[in-house]
């Protein structure tokens, strides 16, 4: 099938079938529309919590009750409210079930789907206990889901559902009515900037590739998302893969490319599978291949896997990897838009950048530019995790403040702890102390504070997090992932890490911090690629805002957050100890000598600071 009329027919039929889901009401529903839709979260997070079993059980139960014609059960992409997963949402009544287990299926089907009465105990409730339906939930209040518009709404394994939400309409317009320059002009008005972290204007990249003359050009989707704590791209690939395919085809038309590759991490098994299915369906429906929608345009997309190298998220290292080499970056210039994959002009864009494209084309660049701030248009997807009540995947307009994100969306800090800092930009970014909570988030403001937007990882830290430890964690990551080609990153990262280890173990020399700064300068100026250039950021940034913590570690050999194990010890508070001996049993290294009569104490020499004694003591008699 390849004609536009065929596609239009499929789209119309799908819209009809999904009416009550898309419109949120039974009113005006056409013949044959499903009365209810059961949307089961099928992102990796919920899948690994019996999400798949949940979906299958619901499906079977619905069929068993003969409700198959009225009720559609589907798996969707990530709802974003990961803290409360597995999630099941019922449309059109917007019932939002959380922490659903397979055992709950029978009740949901019996009481709600058949009986029409939602299961109260499973419904999401705000902190004060009030039930909130989809649309009212505070978590979503400040969010504006453009990139994630289909995640949690459609079945990513069914192209007709993508069509029903206006999917491939943008592509159709582009291949039949628009010239390459016009597409790029629209992007320029929109002001879309690369969402992978660098924030380079997307229209410029496309224009550079369009201008470079060549018989063969490429479109590459960078799906090698590797920042620890970031899963925005993964969620898009799992929840709305067609958005990426459509965007790549639009790019191909704009620059004159014939071949596209999606370079995706080998660890993203579910995303790879969903892409495979999406590609199969896209080809079958004529939106990819030799003759796209009968327009004569030719564009093929294939998947290429990574193999466990974070550095391959760097543009030129990624190209090297596809070409079958070690993933080491190339010196730039020349840039990929001029000399890229197999030496041909290539546009490489991040998944999230691409996922914005179809909506921009459909709604117009001006619409997109109306969202966000002057320098940073549109929205940003963040993976909000760490010490925050509502951990999950969120999408907010640029310019939303950190306070709004952490408290209004995130629900604030759990366990009554005080917020300390927010880390953005993953291993390339920095920490932002709580005093800057009212900063509106965009590319420039974060950079001014010594951090960066990055790909969207946002980690909230509280008083129990040690800034030295955080810096060491991120730097350790970069050292492991360094490709090793250039000396500043390969050696500098390692030396800086050694310094941090010494600091966290109380062995730091007096000149440790000046040494760190010196390495930081060399790395930031002389590294060949972004990994090395930014690897020192978490260290420099924590030094900037939390220098007193570093001083405590170095001079006083103290870790106030009690994270650096060499700098604190466990002791038994004898007044509270009831000599039950539980801690002795739990201790993995037999570091608690003594007996019932004379009492117990912890042998500091043997103690490995695992914390088991403290965790198991019923009398709170172990302290740090």
């Amino acid at each position, binding site marked *: 099938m390849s004609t536009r009329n065929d596609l239009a027919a499929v789209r119309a039929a799908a819209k009809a079938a999904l009416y009550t889901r898309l419109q949120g009401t039974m009113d005006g529903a056409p013949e044959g529309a499903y009365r209810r839709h059961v949307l089961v979260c099928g992102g990796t997070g919920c899948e690994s*919590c019996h999400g798949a079993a949940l979906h299958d059980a619901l499906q079977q139960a619905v069929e068993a009750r003969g409700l198959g014609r009225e009720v559609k059960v589907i798996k969707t992409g990530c709802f974003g409210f990961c803290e409360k997963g597995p999630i099941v949402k019922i449309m059109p009544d917007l019932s939002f079930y959380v922490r659903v287990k397979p055992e709950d299926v029978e009740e949901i089907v019996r009481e709600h789907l058949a009986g029409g009465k939602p299961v109260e105990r499973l419904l999401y409730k705000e902190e004060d206990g009030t039930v909130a339906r989809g649309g009212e939930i505070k978590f979503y209040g400040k969010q504006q889901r453009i990139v994630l518009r289909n995640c949690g709404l459609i079945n990513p394994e069914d192209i007709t559902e993508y069509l029903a939400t206006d999917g491939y309409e943008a592509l159709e317009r582009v291949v039949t009515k628009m010239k390459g320059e016009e597409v790029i002009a629209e992007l320029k008005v929109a002001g879309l900037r690369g969402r992978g972290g660098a924030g380079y204007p997307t229209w410029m990249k496309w224009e550079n590739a369009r201008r470079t003359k060549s018989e063969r050009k490429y479109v590459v989707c960078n799906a090698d998302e590797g920042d620890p704590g970031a899963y925005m791209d993964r969620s898009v690939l799992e929840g709305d893969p067609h958005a990426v395919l459509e965007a790549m085809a639009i790019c191909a038309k704009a620059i004159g490319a014939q071949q596209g590759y999606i370079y995706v991490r080998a660890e993203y098994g579910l995303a790879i599978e969903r892409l495979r299915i999406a590609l199969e369906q896209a080809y079958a429906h004529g939106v990819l291949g030799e003759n796209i929608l009968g327009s004569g345009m030719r564009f093929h997309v294939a998947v290429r896997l990574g193999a466990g190298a974070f550095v391959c998220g760097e543009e030129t290292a990624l190209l090297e990897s596809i070409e079958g080499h070690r993933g080491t970056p190339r010196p730039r210039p020349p840039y990929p838009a001029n000399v890229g994959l197999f030496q041909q002009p290539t546009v490489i864009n991040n998944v999230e950048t691409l996922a914005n494209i179809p909506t921009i084309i459909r709604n117009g660049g001006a619409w997109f530019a109306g969202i966000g701030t002057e320098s940073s248009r549109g929205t940003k997807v963040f993976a909000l995790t760490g010490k925050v009540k509502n951990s999950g995947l969120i999408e907010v307009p640029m310019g939303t403040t950190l306070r709004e994100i952490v408290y209004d969306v995130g629900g604030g800090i759990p366990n009554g702890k005080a917020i300390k800092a927010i880390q953005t930009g993953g291993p390339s970014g920095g920490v932002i102390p709580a005093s800057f909570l009212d900063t509106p988030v965009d590319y420039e403001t974060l950079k001014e504070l010594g951090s960066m937007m990055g790909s969207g990882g946002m980690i909230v830290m509280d008083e129990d997090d040690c800034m030295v430890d955080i810096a060491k964690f991120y730097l350790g990551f970069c050292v492991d992932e360094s490709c090793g080609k250039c000396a500043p990153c390969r050696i500098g990262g390692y030396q800086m890490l050694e310094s941090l280890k010494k600091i966290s173990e109380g062995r730091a020399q007096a000149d440790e911090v000046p040494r760190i700064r010196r390495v930081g300068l060399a790395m930031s100026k002389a590294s060949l690629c972004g990994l090395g250039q930014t690897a020192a950021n978490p260290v420099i940034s924590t030094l900037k805002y939390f220098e007193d913590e570093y001083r405590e570690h170095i001079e006083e050999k103290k870790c106030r957050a009690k994270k650096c194990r060499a700098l604190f010890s466990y002791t038994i508070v004898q007044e509270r100890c009831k000599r039950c001996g539980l801690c002795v049993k739990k201790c993995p290294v037999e570091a608690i000598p003594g007996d019932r009569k004379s009492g117990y104490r912890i042998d500091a020499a043997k103690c490995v600071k695992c914390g088991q004694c403290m965790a198991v003591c019923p009398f709170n008699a172990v302290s740090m």
Partner: protein
Amino acid sequence: MNREAGCGVVKREPSGCACGSGGAAPAAVRAVLEPIVQRWRGEEGNLIMILHGLQKAMGYVPRAAALELAQMLDVPLARIYEVITFYNYFKLEPPGKYVIAVCTGTACYLKGAPQIIDSLRDVLDLAEGRSVTADGLFQLDEVRCLGCCGLAPVLTVNGEVFGRVKQGDVPDIVEQFREREAGVKQE
């Protein structure tokens, strides 16, 4: 480059074992590689995809397979080794039967992944720098973010996901698989 595997010209140098470490006979290795190479022949950027196929089929990349692949693709062996030693995914040693992957992404790290790893090393008697236990039963991998940050800390055993793991759960989790292994043996 024209490399001929075997050649009738002149006398051959006396040699030792042709296959090197890995144990698998060249013919058996070729049989595994043929369909993979066939599938990817002619497609650009296929080396890493072929290596993935090879690792999936054999569990790791034995030297014999690397040698054979070099022949089949007419690619220098040095290229194969440059690539498989660069990328963490490719293993040069046989894997453990139960692969325990502990996520060390930021969220999991903050919520105790290092302590879990230490406990695992204790329980499995696995020294630093080693990843497979002496009996070949368990393999410990520290992996990058698995993307289940809402369930931190997370570990998987042969893909089975364990979320919100506490350090105290570690001995029980390991025991679970030892029992499974014993059960398998009994059958």
